[in-house]
């Protein structure tokens, strides 16, 4: 009698285990496709244009409260990843996430997408990219005409946000990011490094705060 009971319990629990497996869902495949097609992130310029054009966007800063207070992208609100994932955000407003660089924002992107939010993007290189491209853009001393034109375009946005463009910066001191690949005159591109060593977002932000009124 107890043998049968044991067998029954074992079969129920043993076979029941299979029911708890989460099948690789269509969701994962969809997310993977979005990531591969680069639909998951936007650039700082795109974000700046959105804000300037007044498009409704829920911009969320995932760094610490202290970092948020020191500097944040205009119109952003702060959230930490755990409250964000549990929050009941409206699903009709596009959500843009950013953090210091990319990892936390990218992770939050996955978590929100899995919760069914389908208009979520993140800033490709976070607050670092925002400062380097929009808030404190830099023009190299030996800039090409194409670079000057691009800089000029972004400088308009810089002034709109109250930032500070910098010109005549030695190429080796430019803040580097995905945008520096392939930039600059041929001599600079053939160098050992693509021009500049990446600086941290914290040092960029410290540079902003050091400027008094």
């Amino acid at each position, binding site marked *: 009698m107890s043998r049968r009971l044991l067998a029954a319990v074992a079969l129920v*629990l*043993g076979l029941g285990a*299979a029911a708890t497996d989460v099948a690789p869902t269509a969701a994962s495949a969809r997310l993977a496709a979005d990531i591969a097609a680069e639909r998951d992130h936007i650039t700082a310029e795109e974000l700046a244009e959105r804000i300037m054009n007044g498009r409704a966007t829920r911009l969320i800063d995932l760094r610490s409260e202290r970092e948020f207070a020191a500097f944040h992208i205009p119109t952003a609100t702060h959230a930490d990843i755990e409250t964000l994932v549990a929050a009941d955000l409206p699903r009709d407003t596009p959500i843009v996430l950013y953090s210091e660089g990319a990892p936390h924002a990218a992770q939050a992107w996955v978590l929100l997408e899995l919760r069914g939010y389908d208009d979520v993007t993140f800033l490709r290189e976070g607050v670092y990219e925002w400062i380097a491209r929009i808030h404190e853009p830099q023009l190299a001393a030996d800039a090409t005409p194409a670079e000057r034109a691009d800089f000029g375009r972004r400088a308009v946005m810089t002034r709109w946000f109250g930032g500070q463009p910098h010109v005549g910066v030695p190429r080796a001191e430019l803040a580097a990011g995905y945008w520096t690949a392939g930039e600059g005159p041929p001599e600079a591109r053939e160098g050992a490094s693509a021009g500049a060593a990446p600086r941290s977002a914290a040092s960029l932000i410290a540079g902003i705060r050091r400027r008094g009124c």
Partner: protein
Amino acid sequence: MSPLVLALVLGLAFGALLEAAGLGRARKLVGQFYFTDLTVLKVLFSALVTAMIGAFWLDRLGVIDLRQVYIPETFVVPQALGGVLFGAGLVLAGLCPGTSCVAAATGRRDGLAVMAGLVLGIVVFNAAFVRIRGFHESTALGTVTLPEALHIGRGSAVALVTLMACGAFALAERLQTGSGQ
């Protein structure tokens, strides 16, 4: 409880249950391989399935974290060859390392002999180790589990093993009633 005292307590229960099942007696143990007494299969697989299902569900329910439990690594060829040698030695000796202690502790002299043989075999292995080290560490796959290797979910692997074990038990019952205890 200190880890060593815990080991002792776990061993007490393990030894008592092995003895209660009669596995300290070599003739009963080898009966498995002559189809006359399938106790080894029944005890081994019931224990395996119980622990497997229990560990799975406790982990799923968050009571334990299986990632904190040591899972032995896989070395395909050494473990296959080791298994072959072990199985051959087992029918010769009639007892495995654990049951040899059960046998010795309950008065069986053959148990002591198996224990001595084990130590001897290991000493020989250690002496030859430098020469076979390359082989010993070959075909290492690291920590890999059946669900990962078969590309199925963990729960499905548990279900599969459960089914297989129950099938083995059903077969064992049929075989045993045929040849008698």
